[in-house]
């Protein structure tokens, strides 16, 4: 069997060097496959401190790859690869353009060797390949006119019924030509040696090893000749040596999982890395006593299929990269003898099959990785220019790794979260941001756009036992991000992790929940010691958003965020300043980017594509208004739910007089506040809750009654915008009410506060005016005595298990607020989003703690 290229030609590497060295690099692909157009490396998203470029795309999986010097006329190394369509590929790069040369040997998948001089009849080195067909091929380069060359293959051996998963061409016996070994699926090992004067090779069985050898590494340095280390699907790690024409082997290690790949540690003689099919990476080291020590250094996803050791850091730390069915290239490293760490270098959409390492980009001081897998994508994974080259200046265009590395299709949205967000992405902790968690986790119920309770992870719920129990029906087909189905027992365990703990006492239901248990897989029952407005509390992301069992290790350590929400966390990048998510359905990715300072500045700097206001992300309405005229951006708004309130010290001091409180209320011009302070982006409100919460009634408008104010009122402005303070003070002065700022921590008569908004509003009234339980906290400040009538009304709300009755309680509370006037509601700033022109703008609802998943999926 031979390729479609002429059989009688004997192209060879040295000839190619002589010809190609002076001519253009434009080459044609192997005949029959059409022209090999230069492939401009296209960037794809990569982990922090890495850049990734797609350098080839095949129409079948690319199973093997090596970085090697094939075409001597080219300074840079090439990539040798084999794909599912039986092509042997040589990927050559020139000024960032990659060209794939290929030859189809027998039409079935191939495992190629590195180049080696096995055949003395061919000047220079050759490449060999063998695979599914049981045939072994020699591949050479044949020069063609006009600086072109073709790859040519010739079948040099065949073993009926065999399949070759590993082929080695190397100098395995000191002296003479290199040797060629093919490892068969049966365990037989064949050597092919040239014989005669033509293309003939003698093929003979030289050994038999346990299991199917899938990868072989050649170690030098021994006086007895190179040692081959092989790994097999049967779980054997083999040490092999050619000795007197036979391959001797010894089983070094036998694992209870298939072994997939093997790599020698770069710069560390006597150290090997081996991948297990169950996702474990083993480090095997020969100790000074000559024994082998085995350590598990990494547990990744099942189906590890690539391992490569190289210099991946500017310093000399030990590092190894792995890739596999979890679609992620992890770099596992340690400093000295410290603990092993792992970082994500790349997440692909394909399952991984092979990693190769070598020098392919001289702009850094580190090694590159070639990443190949099931969808036929081949990526070059490298450090950014200048990395590991101390003192080297880097062109500005190459400096902004973020810009280069950013996803061409992944939306980047500004967010607020701390430097340890990845380890804090747990709803059981009050750290790590809100949007970041709401992407991943779901609450059983949430508040809909009208402010009423709406389905979340539960699609329906029933009150039972006169409001002393709720039974939730979970969404049919709901699954955790690790693929496991959401079971009611999982949800019960999540509740077990927070119910009854004091840090969650701010949720009144926490003290009411007596038991949480699963009723079958689909229903969850929550028993209360007495009726309570449980549903309102279950909208809180922390701690009620449900975490899957995969979030925890068997020892209860946080392993990672595994939820049932619309997005799953892919990786953290850019020093954990970027969190990359993938939609559970569909493709692509979305990034939440922690932006320093004003997020609008981040947008203008190009760090993000969109800013969306929320509880933690503030968008200055004046800047939004200004950007409405900028064609590069689109500004949209939606209802807000966080109300600015002016609290009045109703129980003592000058405002203990209701007439004065009424005068203060009457002095407020909400329309002006909205116009001046919010540039029109606000909804005036007279009720405790924002107008978007349709069940909460607006309050009575108050007319002034000629009260006198002998002394100035003391205003605690809190963290309110100075413009709001100044405008409000101006309004009071117009009404003849003098106001001065209260000293810090001093007594105040007026205080500006902002409610937390949906999903916590309107129940924020409970903490603010209800009877206190437990110690006051910053979230539930003790700001004065409790008005009994108001507190009674709030107690009734808290005990109202039927949400249909809540509007009645809302009305009773608002009525008492109107009578007592402990607070003057001002306005709810509207939600704002600013996006780059060309990107779909979101439709904003009033939930300040989550981003619209439909928009995130669609806006890419």
């Amino acid at each position, binding site marked *: 069997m031979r390729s479609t290229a002429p059989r009688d030609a004997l192209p060879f590497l040295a000839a190619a060097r002589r010809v190609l060295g002076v001519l253009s690099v434009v080459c044609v692909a192997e005949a029959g496959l059409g022209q090999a157009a230069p492939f401009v490396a296209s960037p794809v998203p990569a982990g922090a401190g890495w850049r990734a470029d797609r350098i080839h795309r095949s129409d079948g999986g690319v199973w093997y790859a090596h970085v090697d010097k094939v075409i001597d006329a080219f300074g840079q190394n090439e990539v040798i690869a084999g794909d599912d369509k039986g092509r042997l590929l040589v990927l050559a790069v020139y000024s960032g353009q990659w060209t794939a040369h290929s030859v189809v040997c027998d039409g079935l998948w191939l495992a190629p060797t590195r180049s080696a001089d096995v055949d003395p009849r061919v000047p220079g080195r050759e490449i060999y390949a063998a695979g599914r067909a049981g045939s072994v091929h020699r591949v050479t380069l044949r020069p063609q006119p006009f600086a072109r060359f073709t790859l040519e293959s010739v079948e040099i051996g065949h073993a009926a019924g065999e399949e070759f998963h590993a082929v080695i061409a190397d100098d395995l016996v000191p002296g003479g030509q290199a040797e060629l070994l093919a490892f068969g699926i049966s365990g037989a090992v064949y050597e092919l040696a040239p014989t005669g004067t033509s293309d003939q090779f003698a093929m003979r069985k030289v050994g038999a090893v346990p299991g199917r050898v899938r990868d072989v590494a050649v170690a030098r340095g021994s006086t007895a000749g190179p040692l081959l280390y092989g790994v097999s699907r049967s779980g054997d790690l083999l040490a092999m040596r050619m000795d007197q024409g036979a391959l001797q082997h010894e089983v070094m290690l036998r694992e*209870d999982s298939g072994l997939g790949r093997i790599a020698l540690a770069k710069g560390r003689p006597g150290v090997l890395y081996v991948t297990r099919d169950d996702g*474990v990476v083993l480090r095997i080291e020969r100790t000074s006593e000559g024994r082998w020590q085995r350590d598990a250094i*990494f*547990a990744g996803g099942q189906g590890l299929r690539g391992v490569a050791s190289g210099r991946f850091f500017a310093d000399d730390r030990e590092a190894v990269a792995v890739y596999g069915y979890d679609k992620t290239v992890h770099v596992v490293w340690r400093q000295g003898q410290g603990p*092993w760490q792992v970082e994500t270098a790349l997440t692909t959409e394909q399952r991984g099959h092979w990693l190769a390492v070598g020098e392919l980009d001289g702009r850094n001081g580190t090694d590159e990785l070639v990443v190949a897998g099931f969808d036929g994508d081949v990526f070059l994974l490298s450090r950014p220019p200048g990395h590991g080259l101390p003192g080297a200046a880097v062109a500005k265009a190459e400096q902004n790794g973020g810009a280069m590395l950013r996803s061409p299709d992944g939306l980047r949205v500004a967010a607020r979260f701390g430097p340890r967000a990845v380890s804090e992405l747990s709803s059981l*902790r009050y750290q790590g941001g809100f949007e970041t968690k709401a992407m991943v986790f779901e609450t059983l119920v949430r508040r809909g756009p009208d402010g009423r309770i709406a389905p979340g992870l539960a699609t329906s719920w029933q009150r039972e036992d006169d409001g002393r129990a709720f039974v939730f029906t979970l969404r049919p087909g709901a699954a955790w991000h690790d693929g496991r189905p959401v079971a009611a027992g999982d949800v019960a365990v999540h509740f077990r992790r927070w119910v009854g703990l004091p840090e969650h006492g701010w949720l009144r239901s926490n003290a009411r929940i007596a038991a949480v248990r699963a009723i079958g897989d689909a229903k969850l029952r929550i028993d209360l010691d007495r009726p309570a407005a449980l549903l309102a509390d279950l909208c*809180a992301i922390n701690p009620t958003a449900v975490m899957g069992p995969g979030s925890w290790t068997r*020892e209860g350590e*946080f392993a990672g965020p595994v939820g049932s929400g619309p997005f799953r966390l892919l990786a953290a990048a850019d020093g954990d300043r970027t969190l990359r998510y993938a939609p559970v359905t569909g493709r692509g990715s979305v990034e939440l980017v922690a932006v320093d300072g004003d997020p609008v500045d981040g947008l203008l700097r190009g760090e993000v594509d969109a800013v969306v206001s929320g509880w933690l992300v503030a968008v200055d309405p004046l800047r939004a208004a200004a950007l409405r005229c900028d064609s590069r951006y689109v500004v949209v708004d939606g209802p807000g739910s966080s109300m600015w309130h002016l609290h009045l010290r109703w129980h003592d001091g000058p405002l203990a007089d209701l007439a004065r409180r009424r005068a203060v209320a009457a002095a407020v011009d909400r329309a002006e506040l909205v116009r001046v302070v919010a540039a029109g982006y606000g909804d005036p409100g007279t009720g405790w809750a924002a107008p978007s919460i349709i069940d909460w009634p607006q309050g009575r408008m108050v007319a002034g009654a000629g009260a006198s104010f002998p002394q100035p009122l003391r205003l605690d402005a809190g963290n309110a915008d100075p413009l709001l303070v100044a405008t409000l003070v101006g309004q009071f002065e117009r009404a003849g009410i003098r106001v001065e700022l209260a000293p810090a921590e001093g007594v105040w008569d007026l205080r500006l506060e902002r409610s937390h908004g949906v999903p916590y509003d309107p129940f924020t009234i409970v903490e603010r005016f209800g009877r206190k339980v437990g110690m006051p906290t910053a979230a539930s400040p003790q700001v004065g005595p409790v008005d009994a009538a108001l507190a009674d009304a709030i107690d009734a709300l808290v005990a109202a298990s039927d949400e249909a009755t809540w509007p009645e309680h809302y009305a009773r509370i608002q009525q008492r607020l109107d009578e007592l006037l402990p607070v003057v509601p001002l306005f709810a700033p509207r939600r704002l989003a600013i996006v780059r022109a060309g990107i779909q703008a979101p439709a904003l609802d009033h939930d300040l703690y989550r981003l619209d998943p439909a928009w995130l999926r669609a806006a890419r």
Partner: protein
Amino acid sequence: MNRLVSLVRLGTCVAAAAVPVASSLAQAAVEPPIRVLLRARHGGADRLTPLRYIGGFETKTLLYETLVRRGADGRIAPGLATRWWFDPSGTTCFLELREGAQFHDGMPVTAEAVRVHFQRWVGLPEHDWLACNRRIEGVTTSGDRVVRLHLTEPYAILDDLVAINPCAVVGPGARDWEGEFQRPVGTGPFRFARVLDGGERWLLERAQPGGVPIEIGFLPRGRDRAPVDALLSDRADVFVGGWEEDLPHDALQELLADGRFIVQDAPGSSVAYVSFRLTEGPTADPAIRRRIQASIDRAVLIAAVEHGRGDATTAWAAASVPFWPRSAPPPAPAPAPAGSLPALQIAGGAAGSRAARIAEALQAQLQRAGFPVEVVQPPAARNEAVAASGVTAATPEVPAVGTVRPLDSESGEVRSARNRARRALADAADLRVEITHGVPYDPHQSLVARFGPARAANADQPRPRGGVDSRLQQLVALAMATWDETVRLPIYAEIQALIDSEALIVPLYAPRRLALRRKEITGIVLPIDAYRVDLHAIHRAP
């Protein structure tokens, strides 16, 4: 919604934590701390809580207390609770807290604080290895000093409450108001002062005034000479071995040869024993088991494996647990005709481990008694080139753990997989060498885990597939349902008698506990509780 305010609170906590630092520095100027090395997985001070399975047992028992513990005779003894009783149905356990007890931050120990601690772990799957985890259906309080544990059925819960993880009580001051762990706050004899060397070592001060502080450093677990090297190179003053300590003899000899050091030992409570495949093969025959039992010379075994540092036992519990009933070993059977005995396979541990050495020593003894014996070892050690260094066992089926927490050889997943691999091997052998966890888990917890009714969905329990004698299992179940240790004694006696008469297992010996120290450091007490070291009297002799 609490995120912003939490920053303020965090600052407050850090400031509060700084207070003991000043005092420890002042004290350090007077006398430098005594440097104590322990074996542990060093997880950082921010994880030094009994609610997490990391950080070392001895460290935690220095800082925290369980409600009850096992005393010098191995029986349940007062801990943070001084008195306990059950209701007549045996389903409510009342524990009265020590009067005047205080957490290290000065807060009084209240029943509510203990209730909240239990609330943090009861019912969570990671603690299912404790049978009580699924039997506690509620924790309530009665006044300030009485904690009530409500059980689903009568159960010997006190024997579970001795477990350091997760039962040792953490004070509410260990967390901020958002529930974040800030610092270890317990009621133990030492209190946490601060981290040293960027977190590599921890400074512990006496909870009561007086005495020199100690500086805790860590060594990974395993059989190596690292403790000896640390002492010889003056990187530590004391090393205290843990429950599985297995220091190489030659390293100990080297230390002893240096006149500056002392090797201190004390009775241990962790028992090495032989168990059998009861369901099939030659050891299904009680006569064969009895013959094996009679063939073992414990003194020779201890000399061969431990160089004499062990105490023989013929009972389930070590000799250091005197309340456990013992009976005289059965008479030796008559010699068997040559060639009449069946071939046996013994499963030991990884090459070089204590279990493997015992297996090899047993092989010699059994061969002398006429049994053809083969020792099988875990797959990783099948080839001699892959020698044991403590972590050589295979680790199959390790699940993905994501990128948040890097895995090391002592991570739970890896250890679990390693144990499963060993067990799979052991299940196929006729004889297995096993070692109990020692006090406080011995004698009761170990008995329950090994021979009690199987618990669902707990892959880590060493349940032998080779079978458990059904009579033994019933007796253990009865013991589990009997909370009163005194009432349980006859059951224990019956258990021991059954073990003896049927030769269900052959107890061998308990390795002795070890501490290495500089001569001038005295006052170290090694109790039979293998997870505890008493350092309240430690000091430098003038």
